[in-house]
C-alpha cells in the first residue's frame, strides 16, 4: 500500500462560495469520508483555517525567529487535505475524482517510501 496526500486549494481573490454552496461541500465531503473509511483507504483528513493564521518558525544562525503568515509567497494555499492509503496511483486518482467533484481541483501527491513503512 502507498500513501497519498490529496490536497484542495484556496485561491486568494477567487469568489467566496455562498453559504449554501459551503453546506453542499461539507455534506459531500462527509459522504466521501464515510466512503473512504468503509473502503479501508482512510488515514486522516482535515480542513485548515485561512493562511493568515499561519506562523513560520525558522532557525537562523542558532536563533529562532517567527514570522506571521504562510511560508510560500503565493496566492494559492492548501485549504484542506486527505491522507489515504491505496494500492496504486489509479486508485488514488479515482478517490481524487470524487473529492474534486465535491471541493474543486485536487492535487494528488505520493508520500515517499520511508514515511509509509
Amino acid at each position, binding site marked *: 500500500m502507498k500513501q497519498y496526500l490529496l490536497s484542495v486549494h484556496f485561491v486568494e481573490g477567487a469568489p467566496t462560495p455562498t453559504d449554501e454552496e459551503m453546506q453542499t461541500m461539507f455534506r459531500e465531503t462527509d459522504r466521501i469520508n464515510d466512503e473512504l473509511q468503509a473502503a479501508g483507504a482512510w488515514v486522516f483528513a482535515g480542513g485548515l483555517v485561512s493562511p493568515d493564521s499561519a506562523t513560520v518558525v525558522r532557525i537562523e544562525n542558532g536563533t529562532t525567529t517567527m514570522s506571521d503568515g504562510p511560508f510560500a509567497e503565493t496566492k494559492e494555499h492548501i485549504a484542506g487535505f486527505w491522507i489515504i492509503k491505496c494500492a496504486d496511483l489509479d486508485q*488514488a486518482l479515482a478517490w481524487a475524482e470524487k473529492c474534486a467533484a465535491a471541493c474543486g481541483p485536487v492535487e494528488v501527491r505520493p508520500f515517499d517510501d520511508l514515511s509509509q513503512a
Partner: protein
Amino acid sequence: MDLASIYRAEYGRCVATLARLLGDIHLAEEAVQDAFTTALQKWQTPPPNPGAWIVTTARNRAVDRLRRESTREARHAQALLLLHQQDDPQEVGPVKDDQLRLIFTCCHPALAPDARTALTLRLLGGLEVPEIARAYLIQEATVAQRIVRAKKKIRDAGIPYRVPAEHELPDRLPPVLTVLYLMFNEGYTSTAGPLIDADLCSEAIRLARELAALMPDEPEVLGLLALLLLTEARRPARLDRSGELVLLADQDRSLWNRTLIAEGHDLVRRCLRRNRPGPYQIQAAISAVHTDGAATDWPQVLALYDQLLALAPTPVIALNRAVAVAEVHGPAVALAALEAVELPGYHRLPATRAELLARLGRDAEARTAYDQAMALATNETERAFLQTRRTELTRTRRSS
C-alpha cells in the same frame, strides 16, 4: 541476423517483460542493457530464441544486482520475489501482454503528453535518445530529462503497470492511440532530415498490430491500424526517382503495396460492421476510398470528411476537408472554406491555399502563399516540392 537488428526487434519486448518481473522500469532497462552487453561478448552466432536468452540473462543480472544492493529491506524482498519466480513459465519468452501493459503505463494520463511519446519510443520502440530528439527536433538533453522524469513519476507516484479495466478504457485508450499515430506520422513525414523514417513507421505499425491483437473489440484500435496500413501502403510511390515528393493524384498506383491495402480494407469493413464510428475509423475509411480502384471517389471522400469534422472539429481536419471540397465543388468554394481555418505556423495551410489560388489563375497571390509555406516548412523535401510548384506556376503562365 546481427545484434543491432536483434536489439531493435527485441528491446521493447524484453524491457516490458522485465518491468513486469521487477516492477521497476528503470531497473528493467538497466538489466536488459546489461544482458545485451553480455550478448555482445558471448554470442558467436545468436541463439535460436534471442529474446528469451536476453530475458533470462537480464533477470539473472537483476537478481545479482538486487542482492548486492539489498541493504534496504525492500530491495531484499524484491530479490527474493524474483528468485521465487524461477520456474515461472511466462519467462521463457517475452509475453505480448507485457508490452501492452507497458504501453498503457507509458501513456498514463498522469504523465505529460510529450513525455508519453518519448517514453513509448524509448521503452517500446527501442529508440535511442538522440533518435527521438532528431525525430521531434528537440534537444537531446530535453528528451533525456523528460524520460528520466517520467520514469521517476511512474515509480514514485505508483502508476500501475497494467492494462486498464474495461470501464477505464474510454479515458485510457485515446492517449495510447495518439502516441502510436504521432509516432507513425513522424516517421511518414519527418520534421527534419530525410522525409521518411521507415523504421519509425514499421515500429508504430508493429505496436498497433499488438494492440489490435489484444483488443480486437475496440473499433478505434482497428481503425488506427487500418489507417496506418493504408497510409504505409502508398509510401513506395510517394517520392520519385530523384527523391522529389509526388502528389497523391500523380502517384504510380502500381507501386502501392497491395497486401497492406487488402489488409487495411478488410479492417475498415470490420469497423463498418461494428457501426461505432470514431475519428481513426473515418480517416481509415477515407484512406480506403483513396486506395480503392483506379481513381479517388471524391464525393465519397468529402462525405466522410463532413462526418469526421462533425466528430472532431479540428483545424487540421478542416484543412484536409477543403482539399476534397476543391475536387468536388471547385477551388473557389474550397478557398472560401479555408478562410475560417487558423493554423499558425503550419506550412500546409498556405501550401493548400497556394494550390487553390494557382488553379484559379491568381498567380501573384499563389506566389505569396507559396513563399509563406516555404518559410514555414521544416522538411527540406517538402520545401523543395513547394519551390518546384512555385516555379512551374511561372513557367506555365509564360508558355500559355
